[in-house]
């Protein structure tokens, strides 16, 4: 599994060739994802993919799957999975510092901000 990001601090090892499936988690990543998958591969659109050009879908028999939100079942599965994940510590701020937290997120200095009311 490869993580691709324009920020090298957040990216993992680059793929060494076409991949079987690509998941678009960042806005505008659709074109890169279509280029990244091998013929017959799958692109899962989990965010606003931006430009999604059709040509490869037909000739290369790609599958593009849209996905949004969660179901009660996947919420249960996510809760069960959380203790097993090694996630970075979130930034915790009081709700009064919402603007500051948002700025940190926009500057990509934190992955998640938890606001405490």
């Amino acid at each position, binding site marked *: 599994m490869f993580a691709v990001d324009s920020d090298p601090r957040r990216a993992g090892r680059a793929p060494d060739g076409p991949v079987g499936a690509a998941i678009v988690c960042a806005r505008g990543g659709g074109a890169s994802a279509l280029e990244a998958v091998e*013929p017959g591969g799958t692109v899962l*659109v989990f965010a606003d993919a931006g430009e999604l050009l059709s040509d490869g*879908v*037909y000739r290369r*028999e790609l*599958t593009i799957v849209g996905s949004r939100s969660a179901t009660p079942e996947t919420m249960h599965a996510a809760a069960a999975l959380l203790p097993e994940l090694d996630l970075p510590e979130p930034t915790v701020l009081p709700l009064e510092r919402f603007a500051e937290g948002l700025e940190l997120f926009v500057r990509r200095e934190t992955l998640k901000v938890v606001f405490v009311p």
Partner: protein
Amino acid sequence: MKAARFYAPGDLRIEDVPDPQPGPGDVLVQVELALTDGTDLKTFRRGHPLLLSETPSPFGHEFCGFDVATGKRVVAANSAPCGACPNCARSRETLCDNLLPLLNGAYAELIVVPARIARVNLHPVPRTLGSEIAALVEPLACALHVLDIVDVEDQAVAVLGPGPMGMLLCACLRDAGARTVYIAGGTDERRTLATEFGGTPGDAQDADVVIEATGTAEGWQDAVRAVRRGGTVVLFSGIPNDVDLDANRLHYDELTLKGAFHHTPKTVRRALTFLTSGARPWEKLLTHQVSLEQLPGLFADPPPGYLKAIVRP
């Protein structure tokens, strides 16, 4: 021999050319008849990035004829997977790394089916099957390949585009257990004909599965617009330029888009069986008959009611 040769969009010439010479394993076929199709018409109008390699090019790829060596009546598809590349190993034969060049040259008195195609995709024609119908094997095989891509059993399916491919798709989808196959677009006459192939005149709005067979950018966008939330769109017809698809709709309405390209050896064999069954009035797709010399005129100005033409060299 006489043969049609494509020089440029709008420039198709009937010429005397040397008889083709088969190499080892190749099969020389005396063409009894060829069929026109939508891809050839599109190619005549604007060229084609895959179909023709260099010009002037032999032209036409749906045919039935006689194996000159044995006298047997045969049909062949216009390609065959190599069976050895990574995509073939994964049973994705339509993505074969060695699929090209595609076979062209059916609008001629003779055609050589290369050994790589003859080994896999050249078949004797059953005695009960007319040559005109047998020549439909290649387009029907493409339509059948859609069933490799999407499961339509008990689904409400819509086909956009009641052309010959739309009719063949209706037949395949109904045969595969689709609950209803709505046929959308085109004229009343076309949609009425589609009923004989299992279609139901209607529109594509909120269909479980929408199959795009118009060959237009608008058709691709209409398909994405019409399918129900959570539904599947199959992009079946090639178009010359990229289309920007509605990424928002894909994401928020959880659509699935799939491409269905070309045919496989298995769908070629199944197509021949389906045609032989007589399950549908296949002959109604063959609306016109022309000589080789009349072919450029037919492509330049298709007559009213035209679907497909039989070309007799």
